[in-house]
């Protein structure tokens, strides 16, 4: 019995690992029923895989049987792999027992599609209901919405899940058509829109009637596969920006494609996943969400691709030297945030600390500013007087000579796949 369970877990965890969402944050489910679990506002990573990704949730598929045949997916119909499916009880037992031992923050449940969308969605719903109502489980639950499932099922699932997500898969419609002819972006935007409206509606009702239940309190997210199709970084980030705006998403995840198929529409098996590019996309995403950058400032027709050798903030600064140097003793917080080498924490500390007197170089270093990078873009109380105006390319080479980027030792250009 336990051997079969081990086998299922191996198969269905293996198949779920390409979903990159790992967040367990943003939930606010309190343990007020003397049950098990209490969601931590900031989320907790309980361990990290040997590839360095965080493990916060028990991330599994309910089944890897699937009626679809999407070229980028391990569980596609035409792939010759061992198939398995958990029972409702098995998923509940695993979740409870892992949580009790403090292995996980909760459950991330996705599924291949067996029979049809509603049949699958109904199973997922039974699991979350059993966890919440019978087991009094208050840990985090991230539920994948099954494309094409009926609105009643999605709505009910939203009453028990903390987060729901549905993957865009490919950044553009044409890319998706190429690899998954049966799918469209519209199938994704419809439930995203539905859930977003429900979130708004439930919030409105809660203002009037306190006892209105919470609905998907940690919001929605989505994921795009990067590097399987020939989109530019500009197209990718513009899609992301649009989805943040239209569907108030909490997160967009970017998943560097890992070749798993001999399909000739896709990169060959054994080719390296685009890890640096993926990292640059996340940095850009951060700049949009926390640093007040508009996507067009970072990526536009003149610069459709992110630099591989330097980060997007530095890259933007070098293209816009007219905004620098910034005097950190007088500039507004938002302006300070745009200086390379200064992050959110340091920017906040600078704004606090300068009330007590003008800040000097040594103080900036202690506060945590990456001074060797920032020095080309700032003025402070004891900045050395400088005669020369450096060109962007000069500054870039100075910074690169001083920094020990982990990327410098790699070949700096990404392989062209098409």
């Amino acid at each position, binding site marked *: 019995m*336990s051997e079969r*369970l*081990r086998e299922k*877990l*191996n*198969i269905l*965890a*293996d198949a*779920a*690992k*390409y979903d990159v969402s790992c967040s367990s944050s943003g939930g606010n489910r*309190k*343990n007020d029923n*003397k*049950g*098990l*679990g*209490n969601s*931590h506002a900031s989320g*907790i*990573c*309980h*361990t*990290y*895989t*040997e*590839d*360095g*990704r*965080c*493990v916060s949730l*028990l*991330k599994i598929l309910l089944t890897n049987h699937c009626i679809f045949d999407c070229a980028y997916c391990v569980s596609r119909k035409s792939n010759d792999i061992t198939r398995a499916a958990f029972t409702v009880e098995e998923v509940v037992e*695993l979740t409870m*027992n*892992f949580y*009790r*031992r*403090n*292995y996980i923050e909760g459950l991330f449940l996705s599924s291949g599609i067996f029979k049809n969308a509603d049949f699958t969605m109904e199973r997922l719903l039974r699991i979350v209901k059993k966890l919440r109502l019978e087991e*009094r489980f208050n840990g985090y639950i991230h539920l994948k919405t099954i494309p094409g499932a009926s609105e009643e099922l999605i709505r009910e699932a939203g009453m028990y899940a903390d987060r729901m997500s549905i993957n865009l898969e490919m950044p553009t419609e044409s890319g998706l058509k190429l690899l998954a002819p049966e799918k469209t972006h519209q199938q994704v935007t419809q439930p995203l829109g539905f859930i977003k409206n429900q979130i708004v509606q439930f919030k409105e009702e809660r203002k009037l009637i306190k006892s209105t239940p919470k609905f998907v309190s940690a919001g929605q997210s989505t994921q795009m596969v990067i590097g399987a199709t020939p989109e530019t970084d500009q197209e990718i980030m513009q899609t992301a920006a649009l989805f943040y705006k239209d569907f108030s998403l909490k997160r967009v995840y970017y998943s*560097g494609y*890992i*070749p798993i198929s001999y399909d000739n529409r896709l990169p060959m098996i054994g080719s*390296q*996943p685009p*890890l640096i590019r993926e990292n640059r996309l996340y940095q850009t995403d951060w700049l949009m969400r926390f640093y007040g950058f508009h996507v067009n400032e970072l990526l536009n027709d003149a610069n459709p691709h992110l630099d591989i050798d330097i980060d997007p903030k530095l890259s933007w600064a070098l293209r816009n030297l007219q905004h620098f140097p910034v005097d950190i003793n007088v500039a507004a917080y938002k302006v300070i945030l745009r200086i390379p080498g200064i992050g959110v924490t340091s920017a906040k*500390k600078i704004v*606090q*600390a300068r*009330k*007590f*007197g003008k*800040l000097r170089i040594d*103080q900036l270093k*202690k*506060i945590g500013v990456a001074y060797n990078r920032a020095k080309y873009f700032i003025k402070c109380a004891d900045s050395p007087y400088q005669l020369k105006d450096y060109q962007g390319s000069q500054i870039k080479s100075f910074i690169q000579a001083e920094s020990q980027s982990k990327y410098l030792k790699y070949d700096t250009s990404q392989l062209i796949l098409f």
Partner: protein
Amino acid sequence: MENYVFDGSFEGLLCAVFNWFERRPGQVKLQTEAVFQPDAFVPCLHIVNEREKADRVWKGLQASLSKATLRKFYCTYLSELEEGYTALFEFACYLFIEGAAIENNYGNAYVLALSKIAKKVEREKHRMEAFIRFQHNADGIYYCGIDPDFNVLPLIATHFKNRYADQQWIIYDLKRDYGLFYDLSKVEEINIDFNQWQKTTGIASAIVSEKEGLYALLWKDYFKSTNIQARKNTKLHVQHVPKRYWKYLTEKQFKQD
């Protein structure tokens, strides 16, 4: 210059601050009894703990500091670092001399030190919340032994109490020889006599519950199958899970397989 020696307790630290304002001795060096070495040429004062004086200083701190800074103050104390005690002492003196809101003056060495040491302690606290792995014992209690760098048990008690409200658990600090026991209604400090128990982070397999082995094994399986070989990045892995924590982690124990 004068040496102030205190017993390492929170009360003692606050009394040292009180004493400084009573006597105004100028520059002093604060040390704990544990590390103090008498010096023939430097006068030395042993701080006497008095509850009332400590309370007055603590009230003074509460009145002039934000909640966040008070927490930093307490966390820095829990670091058990000598430089942490010095920073707290100097910070408190600086605060009461200035008598104004200096808590965010990160240009000051002690304000910054407080913030940095507190951050280290908070990180350790967060890691304990992440890396504690309970074992289900035959007597029904979920047990975990730890030996954190800093004394973080007081910081994690509420987290585990709220989270594991329907199971009995023990978290034991083996280094400081005290632990927390939750009995389904409240958390208590306990001391265990390990002459009867084996003093290891794991406990003898005879006393773990029947299902314990299975779930530990399933968790190890899960840890392996969720890894993506093509993205292997050992440096990042070790950065996130420093080796000194591996002994806590079920997924890092391979002997049984």
